[in-house]
């Protein structure tokens, strides 16, 4: 049995003897109460920002540019992050971010508030990025990448590699694939999306995402195999 000072840990139990197990349970209770309070506060904050966002969407639909500016400022870093996977050229990247918000404004009437606004925006961003890749492919503008360069990478864990260099390498490597394959692998590898999220972002079905991922991986392996043969020659 442990005796807690009446005025310290449990001031609501003055001078009572509390067993260690009871004490631990009470502590857990106090912590869970504190947690639930902070969760409630977080939830309240989220609700407030969500309500503000819905209001801004409503005002934007009526043509309030200040409301739309607020929406852009709130979501531009998220959209910028998504589109940085589609183009690593700063000028093109910024142009694509702009395109997303212009396109979003034009189709704002179709936003039904069933999903969070940033989910809706990320779908548009993926579409804009994919369209950019398709245009690039049509113009045969693929970024150069030698698989010998890839093979020369040290075998040690890439954790020590600079994040920017890792992203750049992957970007150029996946750039050797067709836009469709590139999209699914970028979302799965680089964005870390699961099948459901990839399906939501691309507008494809889950089974289509699975099939497409499999095909894209095979094509990537084929690319590696071809490069391996070339390197051996």
């Amino acid at each position: 049995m442990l005796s807690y000072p009446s005025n310290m840990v449990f001031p609501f139990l003055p001078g009572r003897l509390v067993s260690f197990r009871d004490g631990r349970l009470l502590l857990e209770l106090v912590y869970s109460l504190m947690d639930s309070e902070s969760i409630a506060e977080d939830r309240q904050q989220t609700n407030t920002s969500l309500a503000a966002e819905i209001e801004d969407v409503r005002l934007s639909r009526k043509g309030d540019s200040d409301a739309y500016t607020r929406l852009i400022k709130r979501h531009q870093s998220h959209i910028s992050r998504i589109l940085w996977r589609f183009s690593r050229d700063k000028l093109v990247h910024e142009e694509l971010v702009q395109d997303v918000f212009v396109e979003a404004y034009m189709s704002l009437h179709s936003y039904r508030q069933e999903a969070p606004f940033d989910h809706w925006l990320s779908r548009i961003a993926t579409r804009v990025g994919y369209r950019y890749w398709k245009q690039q492919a049509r113009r045969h503008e693929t970024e150069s990448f030698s698989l010998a360069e890839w093979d020369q990478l040290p075998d040690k864990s890439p954790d020590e590699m600079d994040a920017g260099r890792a992203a750049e390498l992957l970007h150029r490597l996946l750039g050797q694939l067709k836009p469709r394959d590139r999209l699914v692998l970028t979302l799965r590898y680089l964005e870390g999306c699961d099948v459901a999220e990839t399906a939501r972002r691309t507008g494809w079905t889950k089974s289509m995402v699975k099939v497409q991922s499999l095909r894209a991986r095979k094509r990537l392996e084929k690319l590696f195999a071809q490069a391996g043969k070339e390197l051996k020659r």
Partner: protein
Amino acid sequence: MKNERFLEALAARARSESPPAVDVAGRVIARLSAQQSRIERMAEKPLLWLAAASSAVAVPAVIIAIMVYNASTGPLYEISQAISWVTQ
């Protein structure tokens, strides 16, 4: 050749990269207002064409009307009117 696990590890490393900071709000609003005014101008264009077409039709119609009016009040017309009254 590096295996898929290496690729995944590389992707995980790449995910921690932060993209360049952008502030596109001003430019987006400018593009939207430019687009809006272009749309408004485009909306005005059919009306302009309609106005031009109606005036193109109206001007000859007025000319013909004046000519008919002048012809109908000429001396020859009055004589023919008088003859038709006598023959009745």
